[in-house]
């Protein structure tokens, strides 16, 4: 690692000010950023740790909306979202391993937007709102491709608002070495229709499988997907699985998610 300073502000306002410094970068749980720093793929002058900011931590259910603070760890979501949004809690409970879940945060995961990460699929399938220190961004506008989001430099994810669905499920085909998803599918059913978000599969990052959404909105059953095939165009081709295999998995995992949600 190159040398840098670490600051630990206690409020969002202090963190935003600290992030105004040249080459400053936010530090969430560090579960992605620290390995990146070790590889010298990032060289910040100062890391602004968000871990001491209580106002961006916690899970809060209010009517049909579940709000999760941007600094909330996966372990906390797994526990505290279980009653309100069990599919989301189950997703959090299966990210990496217990030690990763005790440090990694939802804000860090969404800011990073790894093409194989779990949370982006939940946010997109739930049409969540990403709340930052300056604005609110709809999930449909937030994810902009591989490791790319609508966030501006220095912008902090302070919370994520999830509309609670009538039924939902996440199915993750685990890449056994990394424990990320080789293909993961999040299905969420709302009064006005079904949304299906796919992670792990595309070179462009998380995306919605709109044909499946239309079929499932008409008939929320695994059989509704029988006539559909996910396209292999633009899917990831690597040693863990080629594009055709991933396309096949998308349908299999979507069917499993619908079956489990019913």
């Amino acid at each position, binding site marked *: *690692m*190159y*040398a*840098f*300073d*670490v600051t*630990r502000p206690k409020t969002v306002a202090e963190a935003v000010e600290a992030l105004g410094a040249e080459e400053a970068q936010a530090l969430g749980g*560090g*579960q992605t950023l*620290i*390995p990146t*720093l*070790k590889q010298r793929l990032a060289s910040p002058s*100062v*890391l602004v*740790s968000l*871990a001491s900011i209580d106002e961006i931590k916690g899970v809060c259910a209010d009517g049909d909306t579940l709000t999760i603070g941007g600094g909330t760890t996966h*372990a906390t979501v797994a526990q505290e979202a279980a009653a309100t949004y069990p599919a989301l809690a189950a997703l959090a409970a299966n990210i*990496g*391993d*217990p*030690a*990763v879940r*005790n*440090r990694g945060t939802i804000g860090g995961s969404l800011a990073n937007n790894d093409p194989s990460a779990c949370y982006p699929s939940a946010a997109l399938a739930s049409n969540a709102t990403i709340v930052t220190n300056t604005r609110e961004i709809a999930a449909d506008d937030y994810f902009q491709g591989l490791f790319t989001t609508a966030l501006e430099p220095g912008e902090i994810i302070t919370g994520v608002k999830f509309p609670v669905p009538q039924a939902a499920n996440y199915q993750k085909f685990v890449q056994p070495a990394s*424990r990320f998803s080789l293909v993961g599918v999040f299905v969420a059913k709302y009064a006005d229709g079904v949304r299906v978000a796919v992670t792990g599969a595309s070179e462009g990052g998380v995306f919605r499988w709109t044909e499946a959404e239309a079929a499932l909105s008409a008939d929320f059953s695994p059989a509704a997907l029988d006539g559909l095939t996910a396209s292999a165009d633009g899917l990831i081709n690597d040693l863990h699985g080629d594009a055709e295999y991933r396309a096949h998995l998308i349908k299999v995992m979507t069917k499993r998610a619908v079956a489990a949600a019913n």
Partner: protein
Amino acid sequence: MTKVTIKVNGKPVTAEVEGRTLLVEFLREKSRNTGTHVGCDTSQCGACVVHVNGNAVKSCTMFAIEADGAEVRTVEGMQNADGSLSALQAAFQEHHGLQCGFCTPGMIMSASDLLKNNPKPTEAEIRHHLEGNICRCTGYHNIVKAIMAASGQDVSNIAAE
């Protein structure tokens, strides 16, 4: 350099660290708790797992500054008050839950983290909880057996395969 104080196994340790000093470096080089190992340094193997304020974390993936003021427990803090092996440590010895021993400190810290919240875990729960702890020797079977035995469960019909 920044001065940090971390309570390691109940004893406050103060040292000057850089921003990039990892918690595991603090533990091994400042407080001399070399029981905490570095296997991969890439957040994969779990040999460096310690408890920070009661939660299992990979100490190679946390900065020492982030633990300023925290209570850290390492494998050196796991024995009974009289210095004898804890039930979990004794079970690893009894059931051959280690061979070279490199992964063992992390295994003990992760297993005790599991038993704290789930005093009688099933075999599947143990394997799921140890997903981030890699062992190159044992094939895991005897580790799982040791943890089941430490939690007071009958392991007489769990044979090493």
